């Protein structure tokens, strides 16, 4: 019993993602500076901030969709370099969900979910199909397995995108504004899916302005502006007593509907 507890404890204190003094440049433009962030296994982070503050850039550096120039990023103990070996090792661990879903339009829902397991994880077709069906069922969309993405609503497409990422059995999930492109009535079904994932203990970094979701799920909320982390706090403290003027201004803008 005690051994079990201490193992679980060790697991939760072991950082899953570490970003240390990370700097990212787009040509001559510095998009990220002094990024220091440590995410524990199972932790849920909500990342918010004004448009252009570097939120997407930050999470895209973690799975090397963007290269970083200074500092260090570690995922599950692997230091992310520019070589294909470490990129491969890290992308195995990290799944990503995009604002515009980015499903493959020429493949059915099921094929979307089976491609990467077969090609990148070398699963057999039957294993990939079983995995895909299980995860499509989990996001409650199994009955649409043979449809093409264009035949689904935005909310359904985004749930497929979540299932597709989960088929690779990631230990971390990155979400880049997963509900921003959705009609209001579809936001909830996607957030509910994400909440379910959080409850199962997935490590998550979510760029979102859904503050209800942040309150319910986040262990920490991080506020970015101008390519730096301005403030981070547990959701209660973040919403009730933000320390920085920029955070207050931002919260004032997004919490007060206009």
């Amino acid at each position, binding site marked *: 019993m005690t051994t079990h507890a201490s193992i679980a404890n060790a697991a939760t204190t072991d950082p899953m993602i570490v970003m240390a003094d990370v700097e990212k440049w787009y040509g001559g433009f510095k998009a990220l500076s002094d990024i220091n962030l440590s995410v524990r296994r199972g932790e849920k982070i909500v990342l918010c901030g004004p448009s252009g503050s570097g939120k997407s850039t930050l999470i895209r550096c973690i*799975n090397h*969709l963007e290269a970083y120039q200074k500092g260090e990023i570690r995922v599950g103990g692997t230091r992310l370099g520019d070589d*294909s070996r470490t990129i*491969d090792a890290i*992308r*195995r661990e*990290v*799944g*990503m969900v*995009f604002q*515009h879903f*980015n*499903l*493959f*339009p*020429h493949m059915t829902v099921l094929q979307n979910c089976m*491609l*990467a397991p077969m*090609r*990148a*994880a070398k699963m057999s077709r039957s294993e990939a199909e079983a995995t895909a069906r299980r995860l499509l069922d989990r996001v409650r969309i199994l009955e649409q397995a043979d449809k093409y993405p264009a035949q689904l609503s935005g909310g359904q497409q985004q749930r497929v*995108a979540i299932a*597709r*990422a989960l088929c*690779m059995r990631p230990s971390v999930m990155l979400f880049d504004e997963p509900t921003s492109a959705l009609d209001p009535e579809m936001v909830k079904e996607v957030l509910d899916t994400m909440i379910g994932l959080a409850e199962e203990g997935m490590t998550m970094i979510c760029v979102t302005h859904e503050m209800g979701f942040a309150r319910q799920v986040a262990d920490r909320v991080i506020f970015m502006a101008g390519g730096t982390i301005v403030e981070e706090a547990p959701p209660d403290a973040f919403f009730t007593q933000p320390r920085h003027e920029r955070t207050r201004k931002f919260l004032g803008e997004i919490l007060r509907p206009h």
Partner: protein
Amino acid sequence: MGLGEFLFLLTGLKWTVALSAIGFVCGSVGGLAIALLRTSGVRGLERLAAGYIALFQGTPLLMQLFVVYYGLALIGLHLSAWVAVSIGFTLHASAYLGEIWRGSIDAVPRGQTEAASALNLKYTSRMKDVVLPQAIRISLPATIGFLVQLIKGTSLASIVGFTELARAGNIVSNQIFEPLLVFGIVGILYFLMCWPLSLYGSHLENRLAVASR
């Protein structure tokens, strides 16, 4: 015009079709290579492919055929007219198809490659499974348009002594002195090959336009 002359024209037609097919099939292989080099993200390879495309788009097809036919002979490679024009058309089609497909690859939204990369798919699978199937669909109208140009362009092969449809027409016309009749038939034969393709191309174009609405 007797049956013999007409059959002679059909033989020419056969070589026109064969030359078009060879140029198109071999040019597709070359064009795919050019398009992949052109979008590789490796500066040197991209420039090489861009230079190749510029060279073949910037010079007349007739001159390209001359250079291959007489140029290769000059360096000691004596090729039959048949092989020489096949090489010429392949090089030519590679450049044009390469440029068409480069544009189509670029037209596939970036998010597709990014999603594939995030799923840990490597370059070969990203291209083969995700980008190219979409790029090929986008490119179909332009690809078919080029095929029509290529079929008509084969008439230039007559200049190096290759007896395709246009040259066959010329020969027959010189024999029976009925140029209007002969070239009328030759024209109809070209039209019967090219017109359905053109129709099919614009049909696909309309379908793509509807799909992207």
